[in-house]
């Protein structure tokens, strides 16, 4: 995947040094470039999805320094000096994250389009609150929309993963 930028003659470029899924990345971006486009089109990681494009649906959720953001409405230069996690970086040494395992085990997805965003948002929740109530979970996740599951299975998946993570300390 090319990291080169087709530059406008008088384009302003901003060097962006950041960590992507645990690996140092050095790129140059123009101010108007969106994180979603840079990650998908230039860095080739297509787990993050463009859907509503207005920060409502959560399909473009990425974690920046562990916190969920909408990549569709984040300027790419904002990740200077930060750490970005996409769904591709969640498994460690080929072993799926407990949330990923739990979504499989409990049928937490159907078409899968919202799943990367769901799982990353859930990770952000469980990292700050390892033992959420169902109400806390729903409040945190209400900005991630699924049009297939009806959410019951997603909630079950996250609650089950939380339990597993608490017991294994992961």
């Amino acid at each position, binding site marked *: 995947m090319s990291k080169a930028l087709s530059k406008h003659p008088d384009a302003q470029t901003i060097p962006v040094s950041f960590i992507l899924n645990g690996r140092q990345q050095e790129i140059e971006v123009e*101010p*108007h470039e969106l994180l979603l486009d840079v990650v998908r089109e230039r860095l080739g990681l297509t787990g993050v999805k463009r859907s509503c494009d*207005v920060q409502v649906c959560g399909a473009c959720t990425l974690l920046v320094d562990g916190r*969920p953001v909408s990549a569709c409405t*984040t300027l790419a230069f904002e990740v200077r000096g930060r750490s970005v996690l996409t769904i591709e970086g969640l498994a460690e040494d080929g072993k799926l994250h407990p949330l990923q395992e739990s979504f499989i085990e409990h049928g937490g997805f159907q078409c899968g389009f919202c799943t990367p965003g769901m799982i990353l948002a859930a990770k952000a929740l469980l990292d700050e609150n390892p033992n959420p109530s169902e109400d806390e979970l729903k*409040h945190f996740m*209400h900005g991630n929309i699924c049009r297939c599951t009806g959410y019951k299975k997603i909630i079950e998946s996250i609650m089950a993963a939380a339990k597993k993570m608490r017991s294994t300390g992961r």
Partner: protein
Amino acid sequence: MLRRFHLEEPRSIGEISELLGRFGESAKIYAGGTELLLAMKEGLVQYERLINVKGVQGLNEVANGNGAIKIGALCTHRQLENCPGLQQKLPAFVELEHNVANVRVRQVGTIGGNLCFAEPHADPGILLVALDAKMIAEKASGKREIAAEEFFVDAYETCLEPDELLTAIEVPLPAENSAAAYLKFGYLERPSVGVAVALTLIPAEKSLADIRIGVGCAGPAPKRVPAAEEILRGKSIEEAKREVAKAGEVAGRAADAISDLHGSQEYKEHIVGVLLKRALHSALSQC
């Protein structure tokens, strides 16, 4: 898709004001970008330049002093929903912040950006009007205070001068026996109607020493409703509970409600009354 723009990254309030003065309407302040970038992506607004103000130090703090809580304009909604000092002094405001949009918007969206963008369907301005907050506006040549109720002029319009920026919001520390409540209603992503009440009781007399009412979202901008306050001010708690329906009708008419996808004018006016009653009861129950 965003069109190309040039990015400025000033380090001081003076520099920002100077850039605003120099580039006028072709430049816009950029903080969290949660509202601005959406409007730019839609092509509703275009700017040659964005002025990233996040490099200015000291604008993202919450501090106590001079009988007020000073909230830096660059505080994110998330920061405010998790601020222990605020939770203690202004629980209604923390609750409001906890329910702004969704977790991703709260993560990057700033209170200052929210207020300055003045999107009609926004929560914070309504409660700040009821809490008698002051907006601190600065430019290269000086600083002024603006009452929250004067700050909002129209949809997407504040009274800030072209080279001025909002640097902080000062909320008076609530007096003894005071409480506030903000309630909103809506089935779309943004609130359709928002109502805020801030009141102070005289406990011995079981009466309302003071009450301030803010309404918003139904119309173009948050506003205070003195005529509805007058109906309730000085009344006993029991009288106030009886009179609140009348105050609600007045507040509903004052809301400048418009018919749109969120609901008809009449419907929104009705909801203002319903929320005012509930907000009054909620605030009273906290005293």
